[in-house]
């Protein structure tokens, strides 16, 4: 996540990136699955910075430049913007030296509609939230990027799920998010991923959860909702608390209060504004979430806001919790 700031926020990188079609994607799936886009990726990922190695490596993470036909142009795996600028310039020069028919072909090499990935479940007429996680009000200082880290994800709700917790259009009317829906929301999105990836919660880890929407005001077709609730997660088990470290008996948890507001358009059946904030205390660490020296207890916040309609359609990180087939 440090690359977001060190590389992609750099003006020289951004100027060059505008000459490309910029894509971000999850590499584990591209490395392993048999879909057309995965095979396309594996056609070039062994060239460049992973080429010529004498020992096998497990990941193909990096920054690649290729043609629409899958011809390798250049690649690098770095957090250094200057290195990326060099790579992009090299790639552009190679691209421009190729005839159009050779570099881009006459038709797309992949049909996105034929690829079965979770993004096909994108709830176009439902609710898509951006979720941000970050430590708040810390007294313990952590040096480096981990001390100011934040992360993001996306939470999805189908239209029928949205309608299930919107109250009647009467002042004071209350709607409760149904237990099964709330459990999914909590298992997938009330996780400590501030500094890195972590696992989803199991159903039995959700010790308590409530989320209530109360009709606070009415304005034509719009209904203003007050959102209130709380969540408590308790988990005990055996897992590692640093990357590839030995598993041992562990506890983790997060107990938080929820508060927010939303505006619901009853005529269209969609939210036009949504802000929900969780503030609470977390403890524990997992193998890849960067808490090996910061078990807490310590305060952490999670903020959910309405995603813009034109935002990239990116699936929830812990999508398997959704159970959508």
């Amino acid at each position, binding site marked *: 996540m440090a690359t977001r*700031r060190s590389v992609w926020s750099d003006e020289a990188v951004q100027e060059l990136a505008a000459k490309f079609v910029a894509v*971000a994607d999850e590499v584990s799936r591209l490395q392993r699955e048999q879909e057309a886009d995965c095979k396309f990726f594996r056609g070039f990922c062994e060239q460049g910075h992973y080429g010529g190695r004498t020992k096998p490596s497990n990941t193909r993470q990096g920054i690649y430049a290729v043609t629409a036909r899958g011809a390798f142009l250049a690649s690098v795996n770095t957090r250094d913007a200057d290195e990326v600028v060099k790579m992009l310039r090299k790639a552009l020069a190679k691209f421009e030296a190729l005839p159009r028919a050779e570099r881009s072909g006459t038709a797309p090499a992949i049909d*996105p509609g034929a690829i079965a990935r979770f993004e096909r479940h994108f709830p176009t007429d439902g609710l898509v939230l951006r979720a941000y996680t970050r430590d708040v*009000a810390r007294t313990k200082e952590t040096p480096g990027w981990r001390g100011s880290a934040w992360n993001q994800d996306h939470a999805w709700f189908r239209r029928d799920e949205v309608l299930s917790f919107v109250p009647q259009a009467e002042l004071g009317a209350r709607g409760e998010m149904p237990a099964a829906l709330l459990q999914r929301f909590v298992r997938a999105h009330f996780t400590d991923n501030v500094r890195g990836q972590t696992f989803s919660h199991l159903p039995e880890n959700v010790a308590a959860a409530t989320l209530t929407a109360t009709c606070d005001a009415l304005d034509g077709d719009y209904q203003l909702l007050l959102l209130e609730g709380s969540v408590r997660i308790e988990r005990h088990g055996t897992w590692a608390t640093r990357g590839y470290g030995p598993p041992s008996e562990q506890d983790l948890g997060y107990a938080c209060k929820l508060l927010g507001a939303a505006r619901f358009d009853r005529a269209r059946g969609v939210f036009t504004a949504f802000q929900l904030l969780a503030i609470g205390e977390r403890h524990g660490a997992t193998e890849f979430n960067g808490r090996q020296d910061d078990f807490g207890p310590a305060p952490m916040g999670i903020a959910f806001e309405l995603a813009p309609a034109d935002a990239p359609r990116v*699936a929830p990180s812990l999508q398997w919790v959704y159970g959508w087939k």
Partner: protein
Amino acid sequence: MATLAMRVLPFALAIGASMAQAEPVPVLDDSTFRTLWQQVVPNDDELAWRRIAWLGTLAEGVVAAQTADRPILLWAMNGHPLACT
């Protein structure tokens, strides 16, 4: 000869080190909501990387690049770079 305190002290210090002090959790209510919200949600500077017009799947990028006759810039990470990585 070590005194009782000298013998106990290392053990007491070890226990003390393992018992992390809880850090106070801010109160979330009407009066603190806006401040806490701004502390959690990234600011414009932190979101500068979004000025690049990222697509979210390689397949979309292949189609767009073919149509526009432009090269593809792919940022591939464990965990989706536009989600949780």
